[in-house]
């Protein structure tokens, strides 16, 4: 066989707080679609970004058709024939389709942009992938699927022989996804190599020739897809067969109703949500990315001023206008994106924990440092936060310990109702187990937990029952006894 299109040799990438890619080596055969999969935080996207020149590896070698390459920027990568289609679209939304398609090298006449030649080239590039779009519309006005076409056209048009697709279907409709898969097959027929980052089983089995599984930044296995079973792939991704773990909170009867939500809607985000949550319960919320789970959680916490509907907390009507009000009612939200919403990374680990509840340690606004330190130490012990001390900057902790800070913050607030949005995303295996035990313990203490997770095994393992959300609506309420990954996936994807 010919030279592999891409060869990773011992790649390492460190981030503040995490070792994202840890000595990964494998090859991608030319002219194939190669899936790169693994759980959240396994290092898939990081590896894709290294290949596309967005991130520079800290160690290791990258070979392209046998030649060692070292990209300083996406521009270098593109010049060498590697393009990328991003998960979050990385084009200029304010510029037109034509401008975006020619952005890296705008055709010029003297010092001016030649609009005629720019449009000409843009049209050619779209035609090359069989797409036709209005060239003068600002990119931001197009649907996500169409914006993606523009990205693919830009990559192919500038001569990319290897294209990285980073979870391209995560925000596409079913129909758009089918068109995308078709396009990928057409590209393969023309000899283009694709590295397809995804954790959607059906797409991998339908489309890909080979699959590489990563776990916690390490390479687990590279195999042809033919002959690989779904269960086997799941096992490779999770690293162990699912155990029959029974959380302790299930032994107790659920208590009084803590939260009741009726006809809760926010235009364009979610519609007509109805559910109830009891003390001692862990209620799961499953759904695909973009199904509206995070939006629902944030609206409940008073972060969505367009949300309308009936919310009752502990049997009383509640109008929650902002997070401060939600907190007073006994609600807590540990948000999904801990760097953006969960932590103030410039502050110390301890100050992050006490941020919403600092008044507890203060008299007339004056913080009693000793009292605060004592309280922080208690939470550090309880959650087994591994930090040199409360004064240590939050930015210096690993992902798992940072996540524990976010959780500690809401434990400190002594909330009766805790909404946990992806509490184990990007967290290593050990910390994950500790967080699972913590969630179980909270429910046993009589708190009500709403657990949002994209990891189905986690939901199946921990929850009393599981709600499924699809396209902004709650479509199923699955009791624990019936909750398997398969049933949940069916509800999530909308196949009967």
């Amino acid at each position, binding site marked *: 066989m010919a030279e592999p299109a891409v060869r990773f040799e011992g790649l390492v990438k460190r981030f*503040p*707080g995490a070792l994202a890619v840890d000595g990964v080596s494998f090859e991608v055969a030319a002219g194939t679609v190669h899936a790169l999969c693994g759980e959240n935080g396994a290092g898939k996207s990081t590896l894709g970004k290294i290949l596309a020149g967005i991130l520079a590896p800290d160690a290791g070698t990258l070979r392209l058709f046998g030649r060692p390459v070292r990209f300083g920027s996406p521009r270098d990568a593109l010049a060498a024939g590697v393009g990328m289609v991003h998960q979050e679209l990385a084009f200029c939304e304010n510029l037109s389709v034509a401008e975006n398609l020619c952005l890296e090298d705008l055709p010029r006449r003297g010092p001016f942009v030649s609009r005629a030649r720019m449009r000409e080239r843009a049209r050619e590039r779209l035609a090359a992938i069989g797409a036709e779009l209005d060239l003068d519309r600002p990119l931001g006005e197009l649907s996500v699927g169409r914006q993606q076409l523009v990205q693919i056209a830009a990559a192919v048009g500038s001569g990319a022989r290897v294209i990285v697709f980073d979870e391209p279907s995560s925000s596409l409709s079913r129909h758009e996804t089918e068109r995308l898969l078709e396009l990928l097959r057409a590209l393969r027929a023309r000899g283009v190599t694709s590295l397809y980052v995804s954790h959607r089983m059906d797409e991998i089995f339908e489309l890909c020739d080979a699959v590489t599984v990563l776990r916690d930044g390490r390479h687990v296995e590279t195999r042809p897809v033919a002959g690989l079973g779904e269960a086997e792939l799941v096992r490779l991704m999770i690293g162990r067969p699912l155990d029959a773990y029974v959380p302790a909170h299930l032994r107790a009867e659920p208590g009084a109703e803590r939260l009741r939500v009726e006809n809760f809607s926010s235009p364009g985000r979610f519609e007509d949500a109805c559910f109830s949550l009891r003390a001692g319960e862990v209620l799961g919320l499953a759904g695909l990315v973009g199904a509206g789970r995070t939006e629902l959680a944030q609206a409940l916490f008073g*972060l969505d001023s367009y949300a309308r509907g009936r919310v009752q907390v502990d049997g009383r009507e509640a109008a929650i206008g902002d997070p401060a009000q939600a907190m007073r009612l006994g609600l807590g939200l540990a948000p999904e994106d801990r760097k953006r919403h969960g932590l103030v990374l410039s502050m110390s680990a301890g100050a992050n924990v006490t941020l919403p509840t600092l008044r507890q340690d203060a008299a007339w606004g004056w913080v009693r440092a000793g009292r605060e330190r004592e309280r922080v130490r208690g939470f550090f012990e309880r959650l087994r936060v591994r930090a040199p001390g409360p004064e240590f900057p939050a930015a*210096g902790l*690993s992902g798992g310990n940072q996540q524990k800070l976010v959780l500690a913050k809401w434990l400190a607030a002594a909330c009766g109702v805790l909404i946990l949005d992806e509490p184990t995303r990007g967290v290593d295996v050990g910390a994950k187990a500790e967080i699972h035990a913590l969630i179980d313990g909270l429910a046993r203490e009589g708190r009500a937990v709403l657990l949002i997770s994209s990891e189905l095994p986690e939901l199946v393992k921990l929850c009393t029952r599981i709600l499924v959300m699809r396209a902004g609506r709650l479509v199923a309420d699955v009791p624990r006894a019936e909750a398997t990954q398969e049933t949940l996936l069916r509800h999530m994807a909308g196949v009967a």
Partner: protein
Amino acid sequence: MPRLLQKLFHGQFAGLALVIVALGAGVALYAGPLRDPFTGAERNRLLNAHTLLDTATNASFFAIMAVGATMVIVSGGIDLSVGATYALAGVGGALVFRALEAQAWPPAAAVLCGLLLGAGIGFACGLLNGLLIVGLNIHPFIVTLGTMWLYRGIASVVSESSTILVGQALTEATKSSLGLSGSLRPVPLLAMLLVTLLGALYLNKTVWGRHVYAVGGNAEAARFAGLRIGRVKLAVYALSGLTAGLAAFLGSSYYGGASSADGDGYELFVIASAVVGGVSLSGGRGGVFGALLGAVLIALLRQSIVILNYRSQYEWIIVGAAIIIAAYLDQLKLRLSARRLAEHAVAARVSGAAKETESGT
């Protein structure tokens, strides 16, 4: 007390304090002695009580404002209007003081009245800044750029562009020697130290101060933690105005009068002091002691030019260069500490993983 000293000069401020001492020593050596025209005694041109106190007094007016500016910058904002607020508080305070005929009051009452007027007008200006920024949700750079001209314009209109004299009582109070040898006047210096101390207590020891750091470090996370961002911002702009008002009272009393041209360009000195003192313009990092040292360094640079008999026009070149160098050093420090943190995280992860395998076997 030793712990406070340790905090002051250990780590964070050590570099800046060292630069100040080194610059002072260099200038003192290079400048040489000066013969006192009255006593005939020789003394160093920099290292004598008068010159040092003079330098500190010159610094004190904008160092007081730098305390307020530090709060604003730590919260992630910027206040360009402090120089104009200084002018308006000075002129407005002097005019109302005159209209009240407060100069005829007993000295203590007159001083209190002047102080309240200056501080009150400054506070009101700052509050207006805050209301515009929070209420209209406009970027603070734009709002305070606007109010910078607005406040100075009002000062100019109400004073008819002339100097308004303040009462004798105020000048006597701010120029008082407090029992030191007759020609030393430490009141502005003491006021600067007091305001800095209060500012440090506010930022580091109170709930509100902690909220300022949180909002500046990550406003979104602060909102998710249930903090009321609007109130935090309102408070820092009001306090920034308040410090400008205090400085205006001190300045106009000390110099005997106020005019609408006072404090011209002060906003830049104030912001420069904070930045040189390690306050990050992206918010969330820095403190008032740093800003104080920054102000002292800038005042010392300006004084050195005078002492070394350079043409005063060089002042701008040197101050400008100092700001860029300080900002660059600060960034360098930040990058180094980020790398250290990253290495720590990796080390923690590796040792954590090792522990797991140990306990697993």
